[in-house]
């Protein structure tokens, strides 16, 4: 089932919220207000929105340190996310998890993970729980193409395949693993073929096209809900910014990045919306709505208190 055209303006706003969230973080980072890691997902907003909008709030999601987009698209509060980035007590993890570990079980977000491929078995395990409970929930596991060389990736695919688990493996292939082009480290650059080698329905999709992304994930999700087992989707996309703050980006040319900007998801969707008859004003309004959401979240985060040092000792055990 395709993403109905009348939801496209909302998708556009959601993608802009993600983009502006990362832009706000970058400037806060540059102001020294954020410590630790920050792995921006700028350029990958369509995989997040297309993928996460194709499931319900009570479906499960695991993602990576680059998963701000997926977390927000799944429903994580922008305020709680922004506060977490600033290490505030009001953050989604009370300042304990930071940029790489956004979590909110109330929207099915079981956790972003800072270990490459570390979250894949968690998604498969949540899918197993759904299967055992005979619910129709599914789980999405987002990961980068560098994860396809990590052992637990394969172990999880095999387990999901033999147990026909309702889990969708979504590989965001943004062409680079940190500063190394993935073709240099991966025997089969078309990572979806690895999914296929376990007998899992596997295909590649244009990850910069939010509608294509939605449709592909939606198809996999309904197959999973009907007991059809796991699917593997490789979403072709591109990381417009560096791997992290301070990445000199010596591994790619400015031209390559410039070309990528012409086909990046937000530009693409704005063109599409105009084709559908939405005016410049409509788009500008959506953009300012997104800006307002981010400004509000930033205000909330900056006004929030830092955690009490004593709280460092809580939340270890239930």
């Amino acid at each position, binding site marked *: 089932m395709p993403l109905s055209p009348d939801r496209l303006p909302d998708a556009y706003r959601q993608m802009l919220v993600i983009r502006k969230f990362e832009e706000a973080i970058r400037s806060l980072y540059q102001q020294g207000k954020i410590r630790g890691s920050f792995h921006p997902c700028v350029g990958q907003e369509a995989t997040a929105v297309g993928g996460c909008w194709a499931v319900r709030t009570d479906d*499960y999601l*695991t993602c990576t340190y680059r998963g701000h987009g997926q977390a927000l698209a799944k429903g994580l509060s922008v305020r709680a996310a922004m506060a977490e980035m600033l290490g505030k007590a009001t*953050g*989604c*993890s*009370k*300042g*304990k*998890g930071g940029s790489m*570990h956004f*979590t*909110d*079980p*109330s929207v099915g977000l*079981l*956790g972003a*993970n800072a*270990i490459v491929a*570390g979250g*894949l*078995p*968690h*998604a*498969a*395990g*949540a*899918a*197993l*729980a*759904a299967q*055992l*409970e005979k619910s129709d929930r599914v*789980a999405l596991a987002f990961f980068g193409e560098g994860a396809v060389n990590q*052992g*637990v990736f394969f*172990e*999880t695919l*095999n*387990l999901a395949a*033999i*147990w026909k688990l309702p889990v969708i493996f979504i590989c965001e292939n943004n062409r680079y693993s940190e500063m190394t082009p993935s073709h240099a480290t991966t025997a089969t650059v078309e990572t979806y073929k690895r999914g296929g080698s376990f007998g899992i329905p596997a295909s590649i999709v244009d990850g910069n096209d939010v509608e294509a992304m939605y449709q592909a994930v939606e198809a996999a999700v309904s197959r999973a809900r009907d007991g059809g087992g796991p699917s593997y989707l490789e979403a072709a996309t591109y990381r417009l910014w560096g791997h992290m703050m301070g990445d000199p980006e010596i591994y790619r040319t400015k031209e390559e990045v410039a070309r990528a900007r012409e086909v990046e998801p937000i530009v693409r969707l704005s063109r599409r919306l105009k084709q559908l008859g939405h005016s410049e004003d409509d788009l500008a309004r959506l953009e300012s709505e997104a800006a307002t959401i981010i400004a509000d979240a930033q205000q909330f985060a900056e006004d929030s208190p830092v955690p009490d040092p004593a709280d460092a000792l*809580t*939340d*270890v*055990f*239930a």
Partner: protein
Amino acid sequence: MTMLTYAQALNAALREEMQADTRVFLMGEDIGHHGGIFRVTQGLIDIFGAARVRDTPISEAGFVGMGIGAALAGMRPVVELLFMDFALVAADQIVNQAAKLRYMAGGTVSVPLVIRAQQGGGRGNGAQHSQSFESWFAQVPGLITLAPATPADAKGLLKSAIRAGNPVVFVEHKLLYNTKGEVPDGEYLTPIGKAEVKRIGRDVTIVSYSRTLLSALEAAELLAQNGIEAEVIDLRTIEPLDMVTILESIKSTARLLVVHESHANCGLGAEIIARVYEQLPNALVAPARRLGAKHVPIPVAEALEHSVLPQTADIVAAVEAMFD
């Protein structure tokens, strides 16, 4: 009360908890139709079916990780590693994931996962099948580590572990499975974090757990023949550590020996000794001692393995040296 082996007691605990709570299910290698290499899961697949007693591929990282995911989603998985040594291929999932996810989420999720495995030497299984990891897990915040020595505690602690609502590493010992003991029937829980005085004595406190507890009790009888009355404490829980029981005991005995099979270096014995000197600096009349495996991998040949692992005679000698 029923006379059961340690393995049968574990089996009873699993059966009772699976009956009481449909969220409890099992994953592991050969645990289903075969009933487990050490017979711990024997017959459970016939009662609960293959969906709740799941034979896995040789993918420890994968199925421990799936246990974490299922736990995050509200289930109560119990995963079995055939040998504790294999925790190393799943170490990321145990240490980086299970132990930390709740904390990194600010307490918004929990990981009610039990990881069971037998460990230790004494059977000539070699360096990759004879290790003891409880002192490693004790270093990891976010893990509860249990190590029962008796059939009764095997049952009581496993039931407590499954209900703990947190990640638990449940340490069994390959040489204990066939040991017999009285086990309370039905609902019987051993409290987590509570040591037990197994033998009362006025002269020296011997702290141990798991397999070496039996050596400690043996040694205590031998020492008694030489007029030394040893108090023997079964730690049962490795972390959180029950220092109260230990300190109480040494207040009267003024001597302390800790015995375990994990290597001495940075082992639980060192930890207990450090805490004792921090918390009761002047309680001891003789220097505290600990016995652990010598600092080499565990060899196969009997004479070699015997000399590397702490033996009853070593315990006797270490205690007697405190009275010179």
